[in-house]
Structures are given as C-alpha cells and as structure tokens.
C-alpha cells in the first residue's frame, strides 16, 4: 500500500491529490458469476487477486438468472456437445464465432459438474443426477427433436450459482473490495493496461489499484431501456470504460428482448415456464407460435418469439385494454409441477400482479434483457482489437468476460441457458490465461501519471456546482429514447431520430450538475457516473444499429427484412472517437469440427 500524488482540476486551479495505491497481480472488476469464477481460478493458483464490485457480490445480477445453465449432460434425453454447438450457432443467426462456441459447448458438462461439486443445489432426477429442462432453440441431432439441456436449481439457478461461487471464494480467501466503483482504466503510452481508478463508495475517497492484469466482468447494459428485466446496477460500466480507453465495442446493435417480461413492469418470467409446458396465446386465445415456428412453437429462439408477440400486438391481436401484451398460460399444468419447478415465478407473480399462475395466465411482453455485444475478446478472454486493418492483437494486460464481453458466442441472438454457461466457461478460461501471463510478467509496469490525472479529472467533473437538469431526468430520457427508437422492430428514419436524440442528450449531459457533493455513500454521484456510461453505450447501440442494413437475430429491420450474408456476415466495431464503425470477419472455423455454414433459420 502507498500513496501517489496526482494533478487534478483545470489549468488555473491545479491541486495535488494524495491517492491511495494498492498493488495486486490481478484486478477483477465485477463480482457476478464471470468475475467470481475467474477470481476463484486465480486465488486457487495462489495469484494475488482483488475483486472490486460496486455492490456486495451476491447482489450482482447473476443472482436473478432463473431457468438454468446449458450442458449436454444427456440426463433426460440423448444429447451431445456438438448438437449444443449447432443450436448455438443457429441461434446466433450465424454471427457467433464458431471456435469460441465449440470451446464453450465442449467445456459445458465438465463445468456444470464442477459447479455441482462447489455446492450448487441443482434440482434432481429420480436417479439422483442433475435435473434438466427443455429450453428455447434446443434440438437433438442438428435440428431434430426438442432437447432438454438446461440444468436447473428450480427457477433460482443464478442465485444458486452466484452464492456457491461467492462461498468458494470465501473459502479461497479472495480479497474483496465491496462497494467500490471503477471510474476508468489506467494505461501507459505503449497501450498496456495498468489497473484502474476506483472510488470507495462508503468514504468517497479515490483508490488506485495497480495490477499486472485487469479483468472486466461488469455485466450488461439493460438499463438503457425503460422497461427491462435487469437490476438497476446494469449500466454497462466496464463496456463504457473500455470505450473511453480507446477500445472499440463490438456488435452493440444486438440487444436481446426477452419474450416474457411481465407486461409494463419488466420482471423476468423464465423461459423455463415454457420449458415446463407453458405456452403463449393472443386475445383470441390462439396459440399463435404455431404459425411462426411450426416445429419448435413456444420454444423457438427468443428473437423469434419476441417478434411474434410484437407482430401479434401490431396487428391488433394483443391482450388487455390497450392490446399491448400476450398471455403466458401455465394453468393447464399440474399445480405441483408449477410449485415445484417454478416457485420463484409463483411468488414474483403473486407479489407484483396478485395472481396465481396455477389459476391465471401471466401478461407478458418483449422486454429488454441481454447485451449480446460488448468488449471484443478471443476465447481466452483477452481483449483484442484489429491493428490498422490487420489481424487482431490482444491489448496487453486487459481481459473481459461475461455479458460485458463479446467473445462472441451469442452472435446476433443468445440462447436461453447459455449466459450462465458463458460466464463460468470464459471466467475460468480467462483465469487460466491470466495465470500463464503472470508467470511471464513478474513485475508491475510503472504507473502512467497522465492516465491517472485524466481519470481523476473525470471523477472531479462531478464536483462542479450549478443548476440545470438532474441526472434522474436525463436517465429517464435516455431510457425512453432507446425504448422508442431502438426496440424490437427498427427502421432507418426512426433510428436516425434516435441517434439525433442521443447526441443531443450527450450534449446536455455536459451541463448536468449534482446538488449533493458530500463524500460519504453519495449514491447520487455514482448514478451520475453510471449515466455517463449509459449515454456512451446508447450512442454506440443506435449508431451500430442504423449502419447494419439487414435483419439478423435480435436486430430486425422493417426496411431490410432479410439476412444478408453477402454483405453483413461480419462483426461491427464502434469507436467512441468520431463514432467510427469498423467491421471484422466472423470466425467461421471451429477448433476441431466442420464449419456450420449459414442456412435459412427456421424453427
């Protein structure tokens, strides 16, 4: 531990700040499943690891995952990883990188078993093995019969996994900095990432954590949209930090709308509800998914089901007084199945809608859910960027995993049950790669004081006093804008309006000032920093979306209704500087098996 002196304030009024410095081998930012799985790998290898999280680890959004984690254990019906891989590639609308997808699906069974050994209380089959349920987009034998691949702890799988991973980290004596908010990455002139500047939320004091390697595991940015299934903390902090550090963000136009959020409120109703036999109906009581996906019906991919609901609503067949939702029926299922397999849903629906799903259908609508895009990485979790139109190269010292990263295993549309898998597979992979990196990098590189000064200036921007709009007003406007202009169906002129609106908000953000300048647990300051991140990522999303002139996965354009593999089978890369877009090829070649070439996507 030590102190460093850095400059802060404008040129006329510079002051030297004493900022506490700590040094670790690895800094993990974010304590959801991805960060905790990586930290565990590192702590078990005796690396000196610090986990920084803006909330106590078990408050992270992994806790809210419900339905389960995919692995071809074949406990219920025949299955293998190669079928899982096919479904994931198809689910991604062929935008997923097939080397990373093969890696993930191959690793799945082993890692789910490992979670079970960590203590995760999976539900059980009569023979004592892990319970698995059918989920959307799953098939046996490359598009054949429905598979049952999703390993579940009732409908609280994320809670069970996050708590078990935290518990294992307690056992491994991982060093936690709970309730510290990361402001900016620190880097030197040769582009090495040296750690990050934090603020201790409780004291309001800045803290520099120097690290030979930094891993971003900060989750997605569901708070971009007014109605979303996400925790309030999901503001894309790590993705925006990468963007500010000059790293482009990948495929931000692909945002998943979950078909079954509680209408108007947003709370998630797991796909497991349909996996257990539930189905959707319109106002005529028609089971409309039979028209959109004759084979898979209600267990088609999420993008397909969300579009189907949105289409029913647009064509006047929605339910309710405003005709703006569909009904999810469970009431034909035996009460004991619903209570046993979906206890969390029962209690949530009771709390927020005062109905019992055993007796009454649940009003649901497509709801912003998951960020497919994010920080570009390879399958080792290394953050990679193309160098001057050339091949990709890793940013030395920087890793990213989980929803904030774009490996990309989800491509244009993530399959249910693959996000919990993503975080443990790539959390572990990044941990392993970092351990190798640390063996070659024995010392810390010197801290770059310009980089620290810039980060401190960013933080002290919120010390400015004045009137003007509030953080709350502007955040509401961001969320309304994104919901209106970048929703399930998109067109060029609507998105152009969205871009104009977001750029105007970015301008207005400059004049926003806090009224509360206190230090101790100032949540207003944290919300202001989060708002900056939301604005950056909102712009990245609409700009990337307007540029992609095709429909693929979650990105559906009314003006370009078809997928266009000739021109658009490529990842987009958005740079903050000048809002430039680049593209890079999809990695179509798997590690050991044949490529799954793009085909029409029918469910």
């Amino acid at each position: 531990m030590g102190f460093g002196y850095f400059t802060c304030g404008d040129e006329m009024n510079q002051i030297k700040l004493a900022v506490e410095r700590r040094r670790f081998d690895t800094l993990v930012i974010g304590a959801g499943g991805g960060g905790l799985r990586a930290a565990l790998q590192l702590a078990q290898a005796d690396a000196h690891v610090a986990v920084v999280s803006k909330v106590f680890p078990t408050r992270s959004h992994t806790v809210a995952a419900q339905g389960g984690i995919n692995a071809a254990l074949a406990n219920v019906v025949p299955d293998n990883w190669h079928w899982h891989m096919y479904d994931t590639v198809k689910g991604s609308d062929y935008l997923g990188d097939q080397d990373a997808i093969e890696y993930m699906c191959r690793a799945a069974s082993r890692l789910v078993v490992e979670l079970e050994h960590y203590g995760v209380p999976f539900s059980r089959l009569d023979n004592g093995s892990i319970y698995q349920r059918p989920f959307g987009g799953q098939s046996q034998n490359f598009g054949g019969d429905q598979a049952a691949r999703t390993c579940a702890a009732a409908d609280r799988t994320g809670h069970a996994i996050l708590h078990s991973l935290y518990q294992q980290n307690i056992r491994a004596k991982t060093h936690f900095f709970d309730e510290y908010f990361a402001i900016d990455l620190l880097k030197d002139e040769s582009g090495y990432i040296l750690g990050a500047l934090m603020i201790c939320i409780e004291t309001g004091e800045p803290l520099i954590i120097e690290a030979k390697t930094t891993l971003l595991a900060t989750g997605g940015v569901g708070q971009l949209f007014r109605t979303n299934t996400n925790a309030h903390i999901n503001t894309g902090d790590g993705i925006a930090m990468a963007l500010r550090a000059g790293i482009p963000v990948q495929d931000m136009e692909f945002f998943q709308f979950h078909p079954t959020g509680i209408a108007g409120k947003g709370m998630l109703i797991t796909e497991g509800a349909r996996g257990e036999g539930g189905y959707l109906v319109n106002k005529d009581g028609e089971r409309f998914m039979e028209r959109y996906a004759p084979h898979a019906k209600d267990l088609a991919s999420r993008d397909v089901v969300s579009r189907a609901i949105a289409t029913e609503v647009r064509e006047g067949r929605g339910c309710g007084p405003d005709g703006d939702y569909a009904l999810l029926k469970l009431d034909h299922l035996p009460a004991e199945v619903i209570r046993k397999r979906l206890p969390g849903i029962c209690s949530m629906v009771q709390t927020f809608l005062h109905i019992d799903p055993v007796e009454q259908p649940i009003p649901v609508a497509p709801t912003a859910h998951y960020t497919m895009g994010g920080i570009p990485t390879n399958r080792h979790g290394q953050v990679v960027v193309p160098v001057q139109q050339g091949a990709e190269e890793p940013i030395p010292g920087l890793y990213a995993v989980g929803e904030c990263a774009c490996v990309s295993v989800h491509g244009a549309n993530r399959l249910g049950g693959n996000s919990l898998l993503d975080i443990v597979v790539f959390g572990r992979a990044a941990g392993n790669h970092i351990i190798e990196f640390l063996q070659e990098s024995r010392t810390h590189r010197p801290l770059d004081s310009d980089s620290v000064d810039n980060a401190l200036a960013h933080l002290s921007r919120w010390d400015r006093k004045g009137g003007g709009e509030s953080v709350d007003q502007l955040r509401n406007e961001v969320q309304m804008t994104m919901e209106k202009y970048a929703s399930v169906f998109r067109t060029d002129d609507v998105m152009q309006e969205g871009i104009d609106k977001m750029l105007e908000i970015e301008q207005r953000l400059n004049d926003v000032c806090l009224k509360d300048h206190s230090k101790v647990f100032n949540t207003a300051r944290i919300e202001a920093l989060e708002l900056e991140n939301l604005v950056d990522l909102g712009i990245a999303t609409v700009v990337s979306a307007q540029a992609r002139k095709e429909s693929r996965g979650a990105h559906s354009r009314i003006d370009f209704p078809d997928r266009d593999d000739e021109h658009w089978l490529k990842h987009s890369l958005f740079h903050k500087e000048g809002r430039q877009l680049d593209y890079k090829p999809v990695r179509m070649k798997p590690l050991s098996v044949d490529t799954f070439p793009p085909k029409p996507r029918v469910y």
Partner: protein
Amino acid sequence: MTSVRFSVYRYNPERDESPYMQDYILENVPADMMILDALKKLKAEDESLSFRHSCGEGVCGSDGVNINGRNGLSCITPLAGLKQPIEIRPLPGMPVIRDLIIDMEPFYKQYRAVKPYLIVNDPEPEIEYKQSPAQRDKLDGLYECVLCACCSTACPSFWWNPDKFLGPAALLQSFRFLADSRDQATDDRLDQMEDAYKLYRCHTIMNCAQVCPKGLNPTEAIGKTRQMMLKQFL
C-alpha cells in the same frame, strides 16, 4: 391512493450531529407502488437521500429496511395497507453509515464464520455427486436466503451479542450445509457451535421467521441444529 405521507430516517455524518426523521409527501401514487419505487421518486426530488437497491424484485437482498417497525425488502413491500406516515428506517441494531444504509460487515462476518461452503473430503468423481430428490428437498427453505439481514437485525439476541451470537441468517446457512447430503463436515460444523453464545443465545423469539421476506424459518433450522448436537453428544 393519491397522496401518501412518509417519515424517513436521515443521517449524513458529514453534516448532521444526530439522525432525524424527515417528512415527505408523494402525490399521484399508483395503487401498486412498492416502497422502493417511492424511495426512488423521493430521491428524484432530493438526491441526497441514500439507500441501497439492485434487482428490484426481491432476489438480491440489497434493500432491507425497517418499514413501520417491521423489517422487509423495500422492492417487494407495497405501500397499500401501510399506516401513514409510512416510517422508513435503516435495519435496527447496526451502525448506520448514512440514511438507510447500514454497515453490514458484522453480519457478513458471522456468515463467513459458519464456513458457508460445501466441504467434501472424498476424492472428486468426474460426474455429479448423486443426491435423491428427497435429499435435495431438505435444502428447500434454506438455500433461498438472500443475505438481506432482515432476520438477524430483528433478533434481540443478535442486538445484544452481534459478535458472539451468530444470528439467524448465519445459523440458517450453517444448517443449509448440515442438511446437505453431500457435505462431509457435519461433526466439525457442530463442534464449532459448542459454546454458550454462537447457537444457544437463540431464545426462539421467532422474529426472524416472522420478517423473512423469502418466507424462510431460521428458528426451525436452529432447532434442528440443536437436535443434531444433542444426537452427536449422545
């Protein structure tokens, strides 16, 4: 419901010599509003009001507060039916950092003290440990704990001896592993609780079970732990 009155505990250590209650009124309150929605509305007007929250649906456990004298999660506690002014205070018996935010460390420390992780001494198989549905059922009502501290901060025994008595939440988690057919540290876990305070300060007042927002029953888990200790002794 149209207008609702609140009385909220305020304390900013940089500004206030002592805590005080601040009155607020919210207009045009929808019938299905939760306490957390109300707090967020109040914060939009007065950004200095501080409280924790995250998932907003009762699964992350961030937002335990005391509402009209009863501990609960603000995001799943409806305003409807509450006596006005609705009094919102931090969870009782713990150091207050600011407003509704308490220092949770004493609570987490007790959680860590019970070794809240699965301990298996046998070599690991390449497949999952087998567990029958009946064995797995024994974990229901235990593993769902969200560590919100509503129970422990409602427990008089925990108020008096937060350093020596483990408190209902930690004891519930301890029993979650005692009840797990896969765990092999039963004797160690029981031995560790063999003093006058850690477990035996529970006087079955049952505040914990009454306030648990997840409907769990720590008192029952403590009773079962006692039975296991007795059995071990005999």
